[in-house]
């Protein structure tokens, strides 16, 4: 199974995250015992405005080139957010493959580096929930409402949160 360096590294990081009690609100496991496919459950704390209380299921798909290349992250629960595509895919600077500079981020924006881990990725994503970046919106409608109609934006987000709670 985990015979490549990438595989060995991932199983170790999985074990570490599963035994680490210091990261509340995140639980991880494998999809079909494949160390390159992680199932993630984010239980968002009430401190995160709007999204607080949500239970969001997502997948992390790691490439064979990991950690030279970043994983992709995709929410499986519907999640209305300027930086999440309608299909659930997360658009955040640290997950962009290095050769894709089309997003036009400031060079100061945090980029993928091989010392990022699943844990740092998930923490960045949680932080993204409370502070969207509308420079390069993945969900144009969400970005527009977030800027122009906060009340409607909040309504849409809270609906997602309620739906996510109903799933449980």
């Amino acid at each position: 199974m985990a015979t490549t360096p990438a595989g060995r590294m991932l199983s170790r990081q999985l074990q570490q995250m599963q035994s680490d009690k210091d990261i509340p609100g995140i639980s991880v496991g494998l999809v079909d015992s494949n160390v390159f496919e992680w199932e993630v459950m984010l239980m968002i704390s009430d401190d995160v405005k709007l999204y607080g209380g949500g239970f969001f299921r997502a997948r992390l798909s790691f490439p064979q080139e990991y950690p030279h290349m970043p994983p992709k992250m995709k929410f499986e629960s519907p999640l209305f957010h300027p930086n999440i595509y309608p299909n659930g895919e997360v658009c955040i600077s640290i997950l962009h493959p290095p050769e894709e500079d089309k997003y036009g981020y400031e060079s100061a924006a945090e980029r993928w580096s091989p010392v990022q881990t699943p844990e740092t990725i998930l923490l960045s994503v949680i932080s993204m929930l409370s502070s969207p970046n509308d420079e390069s919106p993945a969900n144009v409608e969400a970005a527009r409402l977030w800027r122009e109609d906060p009340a409607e934006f909040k309504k849409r987000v809270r609906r997602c949160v309620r739906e996510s709670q109903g799933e449980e």
Partner: protein
Amino acid sequence: MSNSTNMNALSQAEMERFQKLSNEFEPDVHGPLVSTKQSSHSIALEYANADPILATKTNDLAVTHPTTRVMKGDGNCGWRAVAFGYFETLFTMRDQLHVQQELIRIKSLNSYLDRVGLQEHLYEVFVDATEEIFAQTSQAIHNGDQDESFLVNAFNEEYSSQAIITHFRLLTSAWMKLNPERYEAYLTMPLDQYCATRIEPVRTEIDEVGLQALVDGVIKVSGIGVEILYLDRSEGEHVTPHILTDSRPSQATIRLLYRPGHYDILYRAEPTVNMTPMVNLQYDMSSNLTPWDQGALNFDVSSHLMSIPNLMADPGFGMGAPMSPMSPMPPVSPAPASPFRVSPPQEMYPSPMQSHVSSHAQSHASIPSIPVSSPPPVMPSAAPPPMTSLPSRSSDGPQIRLNPLVMKPNLSHSLPVSPPFKK
């Protein structure tokens, strides 16, 4: 085409054409990560119809440095050139003891990584890849392999090649964080941010400060020198050399050809004729220049002086530390209160291995020394050295030289010839 080499004499149309040629220069993005050795005439051919200065310099280069090795322009080329050059040089020296010493030294640098808070499980995969290349190098020497094809193959294996480069990136980043006073003044952003956005991310091309830090933190103590040859449009018939390590003769030297945004490896013609050891000449010159230089210059603030090639070439000048007793050079008059030093040696984080490996370690903190250009290697009766003073930018025409440690925030944007493929 104009016969004149004076850029000012060129018409607007010609300038635009040269600009276009320059902008269109692209390294091979489809070829191997590291090519086999090839003739430097290929470089001359690229410029045969270009700017006369570049054509002259590349023709000259094909004579002085007849072979080259092309790095894929994927954003890692500078890092890869140094890493490959380092292992190739170790192999070429064929000194098993040295290889073992270097393996132990490089592994001991894990302490840098620990000190900046990296956990071992995050970096061990990269250290393992480097260790594997050491093992292959040692084995190839043991086997008496004739050529370095094992290294070319290893560096063309994407995953392990990336891993070695990442290892060197992380070591460089940690080294900079442990010696911030050496680099902070040259950065346009906080050092931690610089490391996070310019050093650590994959496929982020190395810049001048990063290259100096890579050489300082990872390569220098090995005793292997690193020299950059700038192919630029400055006056002169030769590419402009700049030594990143001390000018005392190294056991061997990695030579890099720099064109804006890209590095390849160069190999000098052997045996070296007319190549007087640079260090002696420079030592003499710098000694003579001490009196006027002392009060007049302040390296901490003068980026103009820092732009002069070979500025950092003389380890003997401006150092508080005495020369190594093993040095063949006569003792230098001590300059304890030298204003030229950025940081005193005792403030540097010492390499755990340096005292065992090489006397070169003593010169770790040789920062700016005297602004002396390398003397022309041939024909003392020829024209005076081209760069003993600042080139006049107004009369020079387009300048594409980006000298080490003088990157200004907008320098690359304001130059007439922009780097064609910034990654």
